[in-house]
């Protein structure tokens, strides 16, 4: 029930966005998001609301830190 999933924004219409993941589309409300997202952004969706934008650069940075910490080659 707490499940929240990342979905990609395909269109924005004021407080409502169309989102998509793996062929599943939904409409979500943007009332709760703290930084205006753009089309192409991923957002975490819970109970019909987008709650946070996923930070792609931060994700890459985290993976890079894992790899460096383990002395692995970059993917």
């Amino acid at each position, binding site marked *: *029930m*707490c*499940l*929240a999933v*990342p979905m990609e924004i395909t269109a924005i219409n004021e407080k409502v966005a169309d989102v998509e993941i793996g062929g599943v589309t939904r409409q979500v*409300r943007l*009332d*709760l*998001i*703290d930084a205006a997202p753009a089309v192409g952004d*991923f957002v*975490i969706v*819970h*109970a*019909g*609301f987008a*709650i*946070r934008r*996923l*930070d*792609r650069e*931060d*994700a*890459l940075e*985290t*993976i890079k830190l*894992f*790899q460096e910490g*383990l002395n*692995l080659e970059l*993917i």
Partner: protein
Amino acid sequence: MNSFDAFKDPALCRALLARLTEEAVRPLRFMEVCGTHTVAIFQSGLRALLPPTITHVTGPGCPVCVTHESEVACFLDLAGRDDVVLATFGDLMRVPGPKGRNLKTAKADGARVEVVYSPVDALAVAEANPGRTVVFLGVGFETTAPAVAATIRLAREKNLRNFRVLSFHKLVPPALEALLSDPDINVDAFVLPGHVSAVIGAAPYAFVAEKHRVPAVIAGFEPLDILSALRDIVAMREAQAPAVKNGYTRVVSDAGNPVARAVMDEVFAPADALWRGLGSIPRSGLVIREEFADFDAMRLPGVSLVESPPLPGCRCGEVLKGKMAPDQCPLFDKACTPATPVGPCMVSTEGGCAAYHKYRLDL
């Protein structure tokens, strides 16, 4: 590989796991407090692969499971009213109440119960039922409460007079405080819920490390997130430097989401609340503020919480506190299975008993 899929990368997982196995020299019992973590740890196979020194304990992280017996009795009563349509997330349909009744059996007996995916969908139910009061069952933690609060604001904007919320929302940090203050609870560290933290940020957990000297890491839900959180925990323990770390920075900012919090605070105020198994915890629930009283189902005539006994034989209370593993319950896989659940921890897909049952081949 996209930047998010990399968090499932098997080579990286194996390398992290090998490192964790080397580092985890002392026994460690860690608790997660999020149903999605419970499922993720089993589903990814991680539970079976963890080093023998590390024990995974599942805590009170399933909102359906911690909904108190008297709250269940209260919403079942409400569902039975002629003038009420109850709108709810699907997970609550089979939660057993007094005498084995649940919303499904209530519906079969004629109660009007509608399953919705979002609280906003309950507004459409209210519009379609002008002669009845539509009550949305507000169950969930800080991830869900802002969505329900935003829905109440929308109802007011639309001047929807027949929409109300029964607010049984619960807050995670006060439950952690209650667990940590119980001398019988034997937990060395916490993996903190990613999406609750997306809303509240890291600061509300500070007492876990400062007052109780227990390390904790906010974690995402991929195998790499969980393994990396465990490595951080082991490192903090070895250095005797407990802290609250944010390991899910791609989603969680240390400050949380102030917009979501403002909406939640505008509509709800903290209040003492009852938790299944944990009892009454100070300021661990949310009630609807006076300004939104017209949307509060608790203020409907005749609605109240009356004492309800625990379910006979069910040990969910102990499971939720991490005092008992689900398969130690005498009813586990005997009288109690997902097809014939005795307690909510077996009903909810995110419940500890259901996860043990589904993945027990891996144990």
